[in-house]
């Protein structure tokens, strides 16, 4: 039997990732499953402000641990997701949210891709129409259409 070398290495790599990702997470006790789900969701969508592009969830930074603790305490204290997000925004600004809010200064982020797509579609339409006209003309010269 041939040994599947490469998949094994791959699996090891993947395991590494799982172990590293979980090492940062503290053991937390929740009263309800909903609280736990909300916690998981929030630490995933809040950014670790001292790291390079890392959510609170997987960060080993001490500040990230403090902020996770805040999220946990506030969930247990009965605060809503909105209130917790607002708590973070009041202190660290929009940067702490992975999804930037839709506002005047983030307009280009949200609408930019759509505008680009429209421009590209428009350009493609113009080009296709031109080319078709060119083809039609050439064909017309080669074999004139019978008059109707």
């Amino acid at each position, binding site marked *: 039997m041939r040994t599947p070398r490469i998949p094994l290495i791959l699996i090891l790599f993947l395991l590494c990732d799982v172990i590293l990702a979980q090492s940062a997470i503290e053991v937390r006790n929740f009263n309800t499953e909903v609280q736990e789900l909300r916690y998981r969701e929030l630490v995933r969508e809040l950014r670790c*402000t*001292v790291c390079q592009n890392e959510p609170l969830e997987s960060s080993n930074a*001490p*500040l990230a641990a*403090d*902020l996770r603790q*805040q999220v946990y305490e506030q969930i247990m204290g009965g605060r809503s997701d909105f209130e917790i997000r607002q708590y973070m*925004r*009041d*202190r*660290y*600004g929009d*940067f702490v949210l992975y999804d930037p809010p839709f506002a005047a200064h983030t307009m280009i982020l949200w609408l930019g891709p759509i505008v680009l797509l429209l421009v590209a579609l428009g350009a493609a339409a113009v080009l296709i129409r031109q080319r078709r006209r060119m083809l039609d003309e050439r064909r017309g010269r080669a074999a004139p259409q019978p008059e109707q």
Partner: protein
Amino acid sequence: MIRMMLPLLVFIGLVGLLVAGLKTADQRQIIDSPLIGKPVPGFSLPELLDLERTVTNTELNGKPFVLNVWASWCPSCRLEHPLIKQLGRDIVSPLVGLNWKDEHDAALQWLGQFGDAWDLHLFDPSGRFGIDLGVYGAPETFLIDHTGTIRHKHIGPVSMDSYDDLVARIRQLEAEAQAGS
């Protein structure tokens, strides 16, 4: 003709965009504080040198002050420390040190080794007040005016480049306080 130039123009535009991006690359690390223009969060913290004593924000009401966040584990704090000491000599307003996420012994040892620059020392080992201030690394320096409003935040060590600007801003706040009272 215009048609042939179009790809070149797009290319030049892209280069311009990337150069602008590179020029501002070091500023991208800096997160604008949403707290500028907001009142300084209330606090009630032990004085580092006398843990029995509790310092609250009301103690600093009515005058501008500088709040400098530091920790003994922070190498950049050591770097800026001579300038912080200088700042204490150059301005009239109180210079408040916030010892952030530190151990008491280590902080005292640090003060013994590098000298004390601050008029008042807040001790925030849990980092809770730091979170309220939106601190995401030490050192950070906040300027607070006589109405208790945060007016400026300097992120990272105070350097020769930023020193004069910082002093000018504090003098401005001191002048405002005098005009206001």
